[in-house]
């Protein structure tokens, strides 16, 4: 059964929709055309039915009058029976002037409200232009038979038209399935199965024709599209090969650079540490004059700058080489903050600044915080070093407080100073590489211009943010905010 339905196309959804639409339209048109036909038929039959009244006038009235006149009542019966045999005549009554009467039909049914009624006076003409009324014929017409016949015709015609429409629709379904849908399915299968390994050309199982139709155009378009796709895939393959080669070369170059930096780091640090150590010894040596001592101290500062510059360059290289490893470990923030304060005091002493270093740690901070203490310390040290570097009077403050970020707990670390501040036009690019707020600063304070860029990248790698806080308060001119987001607060073991 299913195979039979499939054979004539009932699994063809497109064809089915087409057929259903065709049936709906066909049914509506069938109803309309049938109604029009039968409306015309009804009016024609009604006209024919009413013609019987005229025929009575033309053909029956005279013989009936003659029969009544001659008392030929058998003939009267014959004529009235013939008249009543007409299915549209509901009632006939004849009253003769001599007292006889005849009826045909039932006067109580449709004849009481006839569709038409005619009364004929049967007059017999005598000599000398005299005439005598011999009877009155009353004929009542009912179109019930016509209406019943038209209704029967309606259903017969309608059902016949409907049956023809259904048969045509099934034939259409089969033809659409054979001529269109099966080719569309083959096209879909072909497109589904086409890949780099299967490049067979699309060919439909249909007789060729000189004139192309829509299916031919689709096949041609798919062939051209596949041809273009193959060309583009070939080009793409070549480009992938080139890029893989370039990537390998880049990896090799990166490896060479990392190796070079590691080597240089080791090779430069070792002698530099030795130089710095001996310079420190010279500067602290008691038996030398002041002049060589000053020279030694100057050389020591230059060595520190050189070491700092080299460390920053190595850090930036590690960041670029994605070689920085973030290690989140439970950390005692209170203890770490004290270390930062002591380190800051050391920096102030080393830079010989007469400023105040303050530490403000909120009391409600959790005792342990899951964080990369090494890199956070690197960022804070850099910020504190910058703050001390650019502050000649006043104070540098390190503040640590609880915060929330998008509803999650966070830690805010602010490093503020009362130094020169950062010009408005430089604030937007303060975290870019090789940037200082004022190029004159580089000359006055030294530095590679990589510090804040490194801090910003490290913060990003830890999932933290480092920003320049615009909300200046409490007399501070520069405030950096390091927000450690999504920090896992670790409870102390009980």
């Amino acid at each position, binding site marked *: 059964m299913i195979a039979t339905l499939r054979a004539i196309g009932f699994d063809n959804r497109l064809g089915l929709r087409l057929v259903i639409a065709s049936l709906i339209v066909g049914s509506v048109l069938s109803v309309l055309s049938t109604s029009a036909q039968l409306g015309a038929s009804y009016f024609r039959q009604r006209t024919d039915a009413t013609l019987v009244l005229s025929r009575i006038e033309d053909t029956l009235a005279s013989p009936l009058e003659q029969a009544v006149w*001659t*008392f*030929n009542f058998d*003939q009267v019966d014959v004529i009235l029976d013939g008249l009543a045999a007409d299915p549209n005549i509901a009632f006939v009554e004849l009253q003769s002037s001599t007292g006889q009467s005849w009826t045909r039909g039932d006067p109580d049914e449709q004849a009481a409200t006839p569709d038409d009624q005619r009364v004929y006076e049967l007059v017999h003409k005598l000599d000398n232009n005299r005439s005598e009324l011999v009877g009155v014929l009353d004929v009542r017409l009912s179109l019930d038979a016509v209406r019943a016949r038209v209704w029967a015709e309606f259903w017969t015609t309608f059902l016949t038209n409907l049956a023809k429409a259904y048969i045509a629709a099934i034939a259409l379904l089969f033809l659409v399935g054979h001529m269109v849908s099966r080719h569309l399915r083959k096209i879909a299968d072909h497109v589904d199965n086409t890949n780099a390994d299967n490049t067979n050309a699309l060919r439909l199982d249909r007789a060729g024709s000189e004139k192309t139709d829509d299916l031919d155009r689709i096949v041609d378009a798919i062939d051209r599209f596949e041809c273009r796709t193959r060309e583009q895939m070939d080009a793409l393959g070549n480009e992938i090969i080139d890029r893989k080669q370039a990537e390998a070369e880049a990896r090799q170059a990166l490896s060479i650079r990392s190796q070079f930096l590691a080597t240089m780091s080791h090779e430069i640090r070792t002698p530099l540490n030795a130089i710095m150590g001996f310079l420190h010894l010279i500067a602290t040596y008691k038996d030398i004059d002041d002049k060589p001592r000053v020279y030694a101290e100057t050389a020591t500062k230059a060595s520190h700058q050189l070491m700092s510059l080299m460390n920053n360059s190595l850090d930036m290289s590690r960041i670029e080489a994605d070689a920085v490893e973030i290690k989140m470990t439970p950390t005692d923030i209170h203890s770490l903050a004290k270390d930062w304060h002591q380190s800051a005091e050391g920096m102030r002493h080393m830079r010989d600044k007469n400023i105040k270093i303050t530490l403000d740690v909120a009391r409600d901070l959790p005792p342990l915080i899951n964080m990369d203490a090494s890199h956070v310390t690197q960022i804070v040290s850099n910020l504190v070093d910058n703050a001390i570097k650019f502050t000649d009077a006043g104070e540098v403050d390190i503040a640590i407080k609880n915060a929330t970020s998008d509803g999650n707990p966070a830690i805010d670390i602010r490093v503020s100073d009362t130094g020169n501040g950062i010009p408005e036009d430089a604030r937007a690019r303060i975290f870019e590489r090789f940037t200082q707020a004022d190029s004159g600063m580089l000359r006055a304070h030294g530095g590679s211009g990589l510090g804040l860029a490194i801090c910003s990248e490290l913060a990003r790698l830890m999932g933290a943010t480092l920003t320049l806080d615009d909300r200046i308060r409490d007399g501070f001119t520069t405030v950096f905010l390091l927000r450690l987001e999504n920090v896992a607060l670790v409870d102390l073991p009980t």
Partner: protein
Amino acid sequence: MFVALWVTLCGVTATAQTAPLLAAADEWPPFSGVDLPGQGMSLDVIHTVLTEAGYDVTTRVVPWARLMGDADIGQFDIIGSLFADPELEEYLIYSDPFFLTEVRLVQPVGETYAFTTVADLRPFSIAVGDGFLYEDEFDRATYLEKHVVTTTLQAIQMVAAGRVDLTLDSVDVVRHTITHDDPNLKDRVTFADGVLARQDIHMAIRRDVEGSQEIVDAFNATLAKMRRDGRLETLLMRHVQR
């Protein structure tokens, strides 16, 4: 001995008649009619007389056209209810008459017309039966205003209704029609004085019937016998009012 004599008599009868005779007449009350006693006067007389004469007779009432039509000639041996018509003697043998009827005019009650001659009927409209034969001169008088009707009853009703002035028919037919079909007419019409014709009622047999002349002779002999002994009159009075 008795059985042998009976067989001999039957053999004589069988010699005179090999097959039953079929006698027919048209619907013409009281002379012949399906619903009349003995199927009417003529067939009753024919059947009675011929049976007495030793013939086996079957009677039947058929339409006039079928009785006299060319296609039906040969179907019936004997024709009843006939006025004498010389034209029919070519292939019919007439018997002696067994009844005499008068043809008279019928007029509405109150009228006083009295028949004298056919020509005197010219001013009158007269209802006549379709195909009826009344009297030679009258039948030929095309100058008369004749209104053809189908039945005698129609003609009498037209007279009674004043639609024609006169009609005419056998007085026996008129009386029978009024009595049986519409007694109300009795008070509305009456016979005019004077007799238009006197017509004898005959039986006739086809000449080509085997022994036709013998049959007619036997009929006439038996009829004369019955007339003499009064049985014929009794038989006739069963059918007519005098």
